[in-house]
């Protein structure tokens, strides 16, 4: 018998795709399905663009309140140091300074740690635990620590003054008595015996250590395998570099005892719920407003200490307090992404079939655990797009003296995709298989869907080989050699890289939609997701317009004010369209049912005699009719506003998938890499607005390519100091370093939700790291290069070529 250790929860919960078919759709849901997709599927230009490009966006720092004051933060210059005391005297004497608060004040005021709840908890998330199986110690996240700083840039005091410059002056005068402590920043070193402990509670720094999969079955398969291929990869740390630095404006009203926070984020409801716990108040006593958000990528999903600090300081001071991060502060203290060390072994039969896989994944969470989503998400997908019968994964998370990590665009999936797709290349190289044929023979076939992978994830649908074939065709894979020969005449090495991918979108399960027919002839939709450039105002309006059969211009989406949006999971993990689309469909169905009842009463018939078409309720075979807006007006007095509220909860994950191909030209003399072609095919399930999905794909590709090519949160090993503190040293993708992309959308509808949606925001990123590195390694193959560490900067590529030259 196999010893199934702590398997993915599919063992305990029957997966919906494995359950009997659900009951018949209600007449309204049928109507919705029939009526669907008049606007859906059309590339409507974005409603929000006019506002945004004419400077009418409302970003956090655009808000100001009467009597507003300004905050500056005192930050740790050390990666690890005890706070023996903080002297505020000189700062408080500095002109304009009104208030100085420290970690001691936090404790005195009973301000509680941010309840990040880092362990993902939906039924289908991998269950991460401490080594002994207990709930893990994740490190309390006080707004200001009283004991010690655990990373460079950690906030240790807030200074509030009349002006921003006076606050900055005051911050320089806060005297912290530091006692430097030994530190560790490197991911692998943090988990080694004897590493300095970031938390006394976890002497070895490793606070999560869980093994998934069938250990005995895996061992047996390895023992029987003809070949075993091994490798180790570090998917290095990057940061979001949102265009809008994080900002917050907090205000406390002593009369109502209510707090108000203006702060852009990935979802205002989460901010409200968690910050109210920090302040020890009821959620209803905190209003959070988050309108236009200048980039998120996961970076803004979690609560930042400054958001709590401005609220608390505002109560202490009796005036509004504003904090806006500088770009330097963003580089130091925005939640960062990736940073996974993975050791992988693949057992292979002599004909090329993958038999089993072992992975040892170590995630660097930084000074405390804000989110384990990257480790968890990746854990469920270690086998990638391939049918590997047995797999065992040891998933560990480790503290280090670095900024905390968080889910970052396609949390955890680019990391494991990188590992399995690099393993495909290495196995093909080492064992003499064709890289594509090796992949092809191991792909999960459509006939196996829904497919349960070896660690228990249930892939809902997909046609992986078809994606692969289409990508190869679009990329003109077969005529590569001619292009390579031409490039050689210019002193360039042409390389090509291929990667399949499958990812999962889970996300917070609850969402609520409120739809109201307004007297002015518009439809108002209140929803709890939070766009940061994704175009929800357009694509959501398309969905509702389709369902209610009204012009898309009539539909307005309301987001971002917790006094209006009461429930909402925010935007992350590719959840927005799927969760919001589904609940909006359900709410639309409810609205039509109510409309049918009201119109039947109005027209003197029964609801069963009412047809709904073109936005009009009509008594069958008569010309008695009333349109939806008129119905709202005429029944308001008798029945109240024509309005519905619908809650929905969906736990079942979807698995977007696809393939990507990249061609690079490497300058033989300098190691300079230029991407000359990039092709992708992405199965996003039902595509609501292809214009927006393509935009998402393009941005996603740039973000993944950016990590592969340039981006790196470098830390000096000697001092523990971050080296890339500005755009002078943190390399970003640019328009002229990207080719024009060739992207196609594949639509294999997901059976998990009524609209058949998967997700479209992260597929561009997921395979990009592997695709780029595979291409660069291919270009360098004549130098004997078989692997290379990201980012593949010119210096790194030159070094790899030189090492190869010298070795041969």
């Amino acid at each position: 018998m196999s010893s199934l250790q702590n398997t993915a929860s599919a063992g305990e919960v029957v997966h919906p795709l494995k359950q009997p078919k659900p009951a018949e759709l209600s007449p309204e849901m049928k109507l919705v399905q029939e009526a669907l997709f008049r606007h859906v599927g059309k590339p409507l230009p974005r409603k929000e663009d006019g506002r945004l490009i004419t400077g009418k966006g409302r970003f956090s720092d655009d808000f100001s309140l009467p009597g507003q004051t300004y905050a500056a933060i005192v930050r740790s210059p050390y990666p690890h140091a005890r706070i023996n005391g903080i002297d505020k005297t000189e700062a408080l004497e500095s002109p304009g300074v009104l208030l100085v608060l420290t970690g001691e004040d936090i404790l005195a005021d009973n301000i509680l740690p941010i309840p990040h709840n880092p362990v993902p908890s939906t039924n289908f998330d991998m269950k991460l635990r401490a080594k002994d199986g207990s709930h893990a110690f994740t490190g309390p996240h006080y707004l200001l620590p009283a004991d010690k700083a655990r990373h460079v840039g950690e906030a240790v005091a807030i200074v509030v003054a009349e002006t921003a410059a006076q606050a900055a002056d005051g911050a320089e005068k806060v005297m912290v008595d530091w006692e430097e402590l030994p530190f560790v920043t490197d991911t692998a070193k943090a988990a080694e015996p004897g590493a300095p402990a970031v938390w006394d509670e976890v002497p070895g720094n490793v606070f999560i250590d869980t093994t998934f999969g069938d250990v005995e079955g895996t061992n047996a398969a390895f023992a029987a395998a003809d070949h075993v291929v091994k490798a180790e990869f570090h998917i290095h740390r990057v940061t979001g570099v949102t265009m809008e630095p994080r900002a917050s404006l907090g205000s406390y009203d002593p009369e109502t005892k209510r707090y108000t926070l203006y702060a852009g984020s990935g979802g205002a409801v989460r901010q409200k719920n968690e910050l109210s716990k920090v302040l020890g108040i009821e959620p209803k006593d905190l209003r959070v407003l988050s309108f236009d958000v200048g980039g998120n990528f996961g970076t803004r999903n979690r609560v930042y200490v400054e958001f709590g600090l401005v609220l608390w300081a505002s109560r202490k001071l009796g005036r509004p307090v504003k904090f806006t991060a500088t770009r330097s502060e963003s580089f130091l203290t925005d939640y960062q992404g990736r940073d996974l060390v993975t050791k992988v072994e693949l057992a292979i039969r002599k004909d090329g079939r993958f038999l089993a896989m072992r992975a040892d994944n170590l995630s660097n969470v930084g000074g405390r655990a804000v989110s384990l989503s990257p480790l968890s998400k990746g854990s469920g997908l270690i086998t990638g797009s391939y049918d590997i019968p047995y797999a065992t994964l040891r998933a560990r998370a480790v503290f280090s003296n670095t900024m905390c990590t968080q889910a970052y665009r396609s949390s955890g999936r680019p990391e494991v995709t990188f590992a399995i797709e690099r393993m495909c290349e290495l196995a093909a190289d080492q064992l003499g298989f064709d890289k594509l044929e090796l992949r092809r023979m191991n792909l999960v076939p459509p006939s196996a869907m829904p497919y349960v992978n070896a660690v228990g994830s249930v892939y809902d649908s997909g046609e992986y080989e078809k994606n692969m074939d289409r990508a190869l065709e679009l990329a003109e894979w077969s005529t590569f050699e001619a292009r390579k020969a031409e490039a050689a005449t210019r002193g360039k090495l042409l390389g090509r890289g291929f990667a399949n991918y499958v990812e999962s979108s889970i996300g917070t399960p609850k969402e609520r939609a409120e739809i109201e027919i307004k007297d002015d002839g518009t439809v108002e939709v209140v929803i709890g997701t939070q766009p940061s450039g994704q175009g929800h105002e357009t694509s959501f309006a398309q969905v509702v317009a389709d369902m209610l059969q009204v012009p898309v211009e009539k539909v307005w989406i309301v987001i971002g004010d917790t006094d209006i949006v009461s429930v909402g999971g925010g935007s992350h993990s590719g959840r927005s369209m799927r969760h919001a689309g589904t609940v909006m469909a359900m709410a639309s169905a409810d609205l039509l049912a109510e409309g049918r009842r009201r119109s039947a009463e109005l027209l003197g018939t029964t609801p069963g005699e009412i047809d709904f078409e073109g936005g009009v309720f009509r008594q069958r075979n008569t010309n008695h009719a009333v349109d939806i807006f008129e119905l709202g007006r005429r029944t308001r007095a008798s029945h109240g506003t024509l309005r519905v509220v619908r809650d929905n909860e969906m736990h079942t994950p979807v698995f977007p998938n696809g393939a990507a191909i990249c061609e690079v030209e490497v300058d033989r003399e300098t190691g300079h890499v230029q991407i000359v072609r990039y092709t992708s095919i992405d199965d996003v399930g039902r595509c609501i607005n292809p214009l927006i999905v393509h935009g998402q794909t393009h941005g996603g590709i740039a973000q993944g390519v950016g990590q592969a090519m340039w981006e790196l949160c470098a830390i000096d090993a000697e001092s523990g100091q971050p080296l890339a503190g500005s755009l002078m040293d943190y390399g970003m993708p640019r328009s002229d370093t990207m080719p024009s992309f060739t992207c196609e959308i594949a639509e294999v509808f997901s059976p998990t939700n009524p609209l058949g949606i998967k997700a479209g925001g992260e597929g561009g990123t997921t395979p990009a790291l592997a695709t780029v590195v595979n291409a660069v390694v291919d270009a360098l193959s004549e130098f004997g290069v078989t692997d290379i560490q990201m980012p593949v900067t010119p210096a790194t590529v030159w070094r790899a070529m030189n090492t190869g030259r010298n070795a041969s």
Partner: protein
Amino acid sequence: MYATTYHRPKTIAEAVALYEGSEDASYLSGGHTLIPALKNRLAAPQHLIDVRAIPELSGIAVTADRVVIGAATRHAAVAACEDVKAAIPALCGLAGSIGDVQVRHMGTIGGSTANNDPAADYPSAVLSLDAVVHTDRRVLAADDFFQGLYTTALAPGEILVRIEFRIPEIAGYAKFRNPASRYSMAAAFVSRHRDGKVRVAITGAGNGGVFRWSEAEERLADDLTPAALDGLALDPSLMMGDMHAPADYRAHLVAVMSRRAVENLGRTYIL
């Protein structure tokens, strides 16, 4: 940024008087080094004296053998000047390769030259084109002007007024950009002058800032072809090293960029 007082004098005399009259003043031109330093509180002059409104510091003049550019002239103006393009196309290309559009409409040739950032472009042109630097009080040869990282012969309070470039027989500029900042990580400005002398100026790489590569000059004087530089290497211990380019890589890039400058005489090559 700390509080500072901004001045905008209309004459050189007024600017110098302001400088002399204050204990802690700094001249400001395009501000592309100074303003970020101020914003990060790394510099804190009490007085900022903006020299861009002084008429003598503006304008471009091209004669039979000279291109004369006022110190406050923006990079964009140099890049777009047809007369300069006809005389020294590589100089226009260099100006057009600095930063981005916004930078080129604010940054000035005098600011770049006077600051002598080791990764700046203009110092290599000034040195290679054997320019003469005119200040409010004297005239300096390029070879005497640059004196190490961020250091020039300019005395405190001395104002760079204009730069007078010799029009060469031909010149080329090749730059390898830092992948993050896009400043030069190794760049070579190669000129052959009408007297037959070749001057090779390297920026972005040397640990003492811009410098002339005399071995390369000797070889190219006899044979102005990329092959003439084959086998010629620089000592990595003379190069800067950082996370983007260790010293040995920079030394290598200097040699490659020098060859590419020779391959691209009359043009600019940017990688």
